[in-house]
């Protein structure tokens, strides 16, 4: 029973609590570089998740066989192999998308998110948990990439996933699809999310405090129970 709950948590923690982009500030290069549109964000997110999931699975399966001195070298070879697979498949089957994402597909190799998860998680846990963790982190990464891509696409090209969502009268802000727009938008998004979290936290603390004041006995009893 306990195990099942924690498996689910292994997945969900990546979505928000430990979101690789917004909370851990990892994987910034692709996050900023390819998110000129939501579709690019989704594609890059999927490619990264694919590499992350398969390298995590393999590394956690053979984690006891790799001598610790060569573990980093082994990890990057495994990761680079999966990245090459993604790259070859994309160039063969989705040439347009591969052209769009350009050199940022091979750069998944050095996405600190992937190597970081191997070092911090897959090398210490059994494949099932590593899979859930990788899926969670991957989903969190997709969420971040897609939301940044959506904001930039809406303001920079008036469209979302290729469909026009803002009226013709709205002059697109070209800056959003330039490097400067990427930095500014992500900075503002992160700051805004922090702001919301902080506000929620202070509100909760206040609530907790007032409840404590109203029901001193209850909380005391609870405290003893724990």
């Amino acid at each position, binding site marked *: 029973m306990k195990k099942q709950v924690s498996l689910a948590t292994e997945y969900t923690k990546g979505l928000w609590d430990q979101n690789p982009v917004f909370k851990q*500030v*990892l994987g*910034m*290069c692709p996050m*900023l*570089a390819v998110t000129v549109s939501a579709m690019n964000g989704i594609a890059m997110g999927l490619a990264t998740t694919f590499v992350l999931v398969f390298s995590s699975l393999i590394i956690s399966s053979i984690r006891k066989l790799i001598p610790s001195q060569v573990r*980093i*070298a082994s990890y*990057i*070879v495994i990761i*680079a*192999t999966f*990245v*090459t697979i993604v*790259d*070859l498949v994309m160039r063969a089957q989705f040439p347009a998308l591969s052209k769009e994402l350009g*050199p940022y597909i*091979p*750069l998944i*190799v*050095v*996405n*600190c998110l992937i*190597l970081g998860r191997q070092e911090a998680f897959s090398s210490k846990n059994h494949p099932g948990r590593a899979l859930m963790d990788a899926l969670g982190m991957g989903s969190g990464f997709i969420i971040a990439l897609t939301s940044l891509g959506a904001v930039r696409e809406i303001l920079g090209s008036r469209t979302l996933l290729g469909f026009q969502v803002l009226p013709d009268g709205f002059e697109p802000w070209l*800056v959003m699809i*330039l*490097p*400067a*727009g*990427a*930095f*500014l938008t*992500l*900075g*503002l998004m*992160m*700051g*805004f999310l*922090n*702001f919301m*979290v*902080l506000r929620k936290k202070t509100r909760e603390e206040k609530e907790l405090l007032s409840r404590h004041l109203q029901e001193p006995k209850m909380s005391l009893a609870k405290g003893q129970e724990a």
Partner: protein
Amino acid sequence: MELILIFISAAIVNNFVLAYFLGICPFIGVSNKLSSAFPMGLATTFVMLLTAIVTWLIYHLILVPYDVVYLQYVSFILVVASLVQFVEMFIKKVSQPLYRALGIFLPLITTNCAILGLALFIVLKDYSFIQAVFYGLGAGAGFTLAISIMAGIREELELANVPKSFQGAPITLIVAGLLALAFMGFAGMISV
């Protein structure tokens, strides 16, 4: 002249950090103090130069002749990782003070996407050996410039009243955005 243009183009006009988003992790992570940012920039420049040389040789002397270009990512990243290891050992042996200054940053450089990005761009742009060397130097100089400016600004910001929710990564990204706006003035200066 063309070599100088390649250098300037990589350092300023098409700055790796501000125009290509490469090396963002150390750019955000190690830019809070100038005393660590500048050595980090120098170490990166050094590794970039070596990477440009070695990966160019591997690509043109091994991967292409033996028709195994599909191994380029695997071999490049292994080269970068072992170069970093080698540089670390070398510095440790040659100069202890330098090792103490740079040592902790060297492992970080392996996952600096600017290094692998450099190797890939050299292949993509089909540079000759000497062009690749200047490109590597320029990219390193650009990285050092960007991270030093950022460190200077962030030290200044320690004294500023940045709203709490924007401290750290968000304000760094916003400064980077404004820097990228300022660097746009160089657009079109060199189209190499």
